C-alpha cells in the first residue's frame, strides 16, 4: 500500500475516482503475497502492482468497471479459470483479488 500513497494523494487532489485492488489470497506459487495492492484511477493510470506483471492489464479493466459501477468484487486469476479469464500467472498459481472503489 505504501508505494501507491503518493499517486493516490495526487489523484484525490485532482478529484479523480480511484479503485484499489488487493491480493487477498494465493493458491500455489505467486509473485506477490496477500496485502500487495494496486490503485487505478478513472483515466486508467496505475500505481503499485499485484503480480509480476502477469495480470495487471486485466486488473485495470476490472478496476475501471468497478469505478463505473461502484460494485465491489472478488476476482480470481489463474490456470484453473482459463475459461472465465484469458489471463493467468505464468508461474501456474491462482491469485484472488478484492477490487473496490476508494470511497471509504
Amino acid at each position, binding site marked *: 500500500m*505504501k508505494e501507491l*500513497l503518493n499517486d493516490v494523494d495526487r489523484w484525490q487532489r485532482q*478529484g*479523480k475516482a*480511484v479503485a484499489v485492488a488487493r491480493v487477498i489470497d494465493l493458491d500455489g506459487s505467486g509473485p506477490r503475497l*496477500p496485502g500487495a495492492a494496486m490503485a487505478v484511477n478513472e483515466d486508467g493510470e496505475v500505481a503499485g502492482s499485484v503480480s509480476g506483471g502477469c495480470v495487471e492489464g486485466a486488473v485495470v479493466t476490472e478496476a475501471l468497471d468497478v469505478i463505473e459501477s461502484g460494485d465491489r468484487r472478488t476476482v480470481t486469476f489463474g490456470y484453473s479459470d482459463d475459461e472465465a479469464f484469458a489471463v493467468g500467472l505464468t508461474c501456474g498459481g491462482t491469485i484472488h483479488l*478484492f477490487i473496490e472503489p*476508494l470511497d*471509504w
Partner: protein
Amino acid sequence: MAAETPIFTQLRDAIRAESPIALATTIEGPGVGSKLLVTPDSTTGSLGNADLDRVVARDVLGELAAGRTGIRRYGPEGQAREDDVAVFIESYASPPQMVIFGAVDFTAALARVSKFLGYRVTVCDARPVFATKKRFPLADEVVVDWPDRLLAKIGPDLGQLDAVAVLTHDAKFDIPAITSALVTNVGYIGVMGSRRTHDDRTVRLIDAGVTEDELARLRSPIGLDLGGRTPEETAISIVAEIIALRTGRIVPALRDTEGPIHR
C-alpha cells in the same frame, strides 16, 4: 471533488508515520466492503455488528502483532467455526529494528542493505569520532553510547523480527553488547569476527557467565557462507542469514561450517 475518505486517510497517515495499524474489510457476507480500522489504542468504523466488531478487533490486534495479512472467517455475530462472513485483514506493523554495534565500514553497508529491506536502523558505537550521522547517512539513528546502555533502554522493545548485529570485533564492546542482547527477545544476534576471534570470544563469554543455550542463540561468525569479501557482500550474507533463520531454510551458515572464512 473526490469523496471524503476518512478511513483511508487515517490508514495512509499511520502507514507514513510507521505506526502500527490494521484494516479489516468484509469481502464476503453481509455488507461487503465495510471496514474496521484497528490500532493498539483505537478502533474506527464497523463491520455492521457490534459483536462481530469486538471479535474481529481482538483478532486483528493479534494479526498485527505477528505482522500477518490474510482472510479470517466468522459467523454473522463473530461466532467462531462459522464462515458466513469473510474478513480480509491487512496488517501494517511497525518496521523491524536493526541495531548495529560498531561504527566500521561493514556498518555502512549493513545499514544500507537493511534500509533496503525495510528495517529501522540504529548504529551504536561508544567512540564519537566514528559514530556520526555523516558516516551513516542512511541510519535512522546514530547513538554514541556503550552497547549495554543502549540495550538497557531499547532492549525490552526488541522481538522476533528484530536483529542485533555486533560488528566491532573488539572484546571490550563485543562482550557487553552480546550479554545485553541475550537478555532481550531479539530474534537474531549476529556477531562478526574470524574463526580465531570467535573462539577467543566464546571463552570470554563463558567467563562472563553466558550459558550453552545462550551461546547457541548467537550467529557467530555472522552471515551465510557466500564466499563474498567486500562490506556490501558481507552485508548481503548477514541479511540473507536473517531471512533464512526466519523462514527456517537450511542454507550454509558460517557458524555451521569450518575452515577459513575467506579462501
